[in-house]
């Protein structure tokens, strides 16, 4: 698969209070952003533990975006900070295991920033497109069978 025709698959964990409404707002105001992004809504960015991200990579997602509130207006006061702390651990793990660190991104998007959501998604999809398929993707897809999910 060459990089021209290659379409990255990206999962985005968006928090319920800021980033998810931002994505919603982007849809309502008809902002264009790539369809490569699949959104998973979580109650708080702090809930996104290393296991979420690693599972996504195990199931050959090519990039993972974690989007939370800004530190000051986190709905749970400390959730966004926790997300940032956990992100550091996840970053170290993914880098150690041989997945490029650019494939993982943490960003802060408030519910009013629909344009920022569209912009961040576009940029992130382009970054991952340049990197090509995930190092796990390049090889066999047998790891998929574990969770009963199959790629077409």
């Amino acid at each position, binding site marked *: 698969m060459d990089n021209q025709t290659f379409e990255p698959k990206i999962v985005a964990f968006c928090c319920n209070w800021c980033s998810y409404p931002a994505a919603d707002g982007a849809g309502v105001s008809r902002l264009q952003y790539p369809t490569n992004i699949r959104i998973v809504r979580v109650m708080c960015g702090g809930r996104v533990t290393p296991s*979420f991200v690693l599972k996504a990579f195990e199931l050959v997602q090519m990039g993972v975006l974690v989007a939370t509130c800004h530190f000051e207006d986190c709905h749970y006061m400390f959730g966004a900070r926790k997300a940032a702390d956990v992100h550091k651990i996840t970053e170290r793990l993914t880098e150690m295991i041989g997945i490029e660190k650019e494939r993982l991104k943490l960003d802060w998007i408030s519910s009013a920033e629909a344009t920022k959501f569209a912009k961040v998604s576009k940029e992130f999809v382009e970054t991952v497109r340049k990197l090509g398929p995930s190092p*796990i993707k390049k090889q066999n897809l047998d*790891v998929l069978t574990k969770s009963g999910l199959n790629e077409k």
Partner: protein
Amino acid sequence: MKNSIAAAVKESKAYLCLECGKCTGICPISRFNHGYSPRILVNKAIRSGNLDLLKDKNIWACLTCKLCDERCPAGIDYINLTLATRLEAQKIGEEAICSHGGAAQSLMRIMATPNLEQKRMDWIDNELKITQSGEVLYFVGCLPYFDVLFSDIEVNTLKAAKASIKILNHLGITPVVLSQERCCGHDLLWGGDLENFKKLAEYNINEIKKSGAKKIIFSCPEGYRTFKIDYPKYFECDFKVQHITEVISEAISNNTLKFKNFDKVVTFQDPCRLGRHLGIYDEPRNAITAVPDLKFIEMVRSRKRAICCGVSAWMNCTTYSKSIQLARLKEAKETEAELLVLSCPKCEIHFNCAMKDEKAGKQAKIETIQLVTLIADLVKE
């Protein structure tokens, strides 16, 4: 499906079960979780070997610590029956409840991909001498990953790896450390995932053969067990395997290791994999007692009767696990020892995690240290 359980029953001699219930009596899980009973599971396996057994969530609760095997008057090989049951259960889609959201399992399954470029050698500093090919290999295991994953409970399992290499260097051995070493697959195997276990095993064996190593030294008892017992079951491998405590014990009897004084009272936790699975009880004790001025006290339940650290293969970490850990820590504290000496990275992680609990109290607070770290610090140059 029915046949393979029947075969496992035959192989583990489960049909000899007297229904005496001594396994349930001694099981550390049953002590706290009254709904769990090894006897009932053996019974289910003998009676039918059907879905009733495979769908039972309790088959994943077993620590496979082998305490029941030691106690069983009929000599039933319960842990291998459990292993066979789990492999079967996985086939029909049953899965264990993984601790830490399955992060450890995900890491291992990602590692089962070939041509992965891991960056796991950061911890090796200039003081440690290693090579890329040679006779002796030191198998690190998943320690670099554990230290990152459990950085919130401030464990440093890599200290043991550094200490092991330091001791080997002191003995004049420059070990091979593979930069692309994978997980040994222990946890995937005990979680019933045979397919990915085999991939990891094949990769490791090939990589070790390429390095030209004949002898492998471990500091992690789980890796040691897997290489000694499980790899030869599925693959041809004729490596000589040794635990670091065996190396130390040998060196002490040859008078090649001399120690500084250490004026403290210590006690020792037998890891289930090293003790009951492989029968290594004396070597760690030889190493500890060789240190001058050190006072060594055994816990009430030690050697064959030692209680496991409460979780195995990153599965089913529950309140029962915590109760087991705290009970064991209290036992260690009761010996009036100042230091609890461990020789498994997972014991270190689990006990330190249990001590972080607010409810743990002072009775369960004891300083822990890995055996190799203790020895490496005390070696006279």
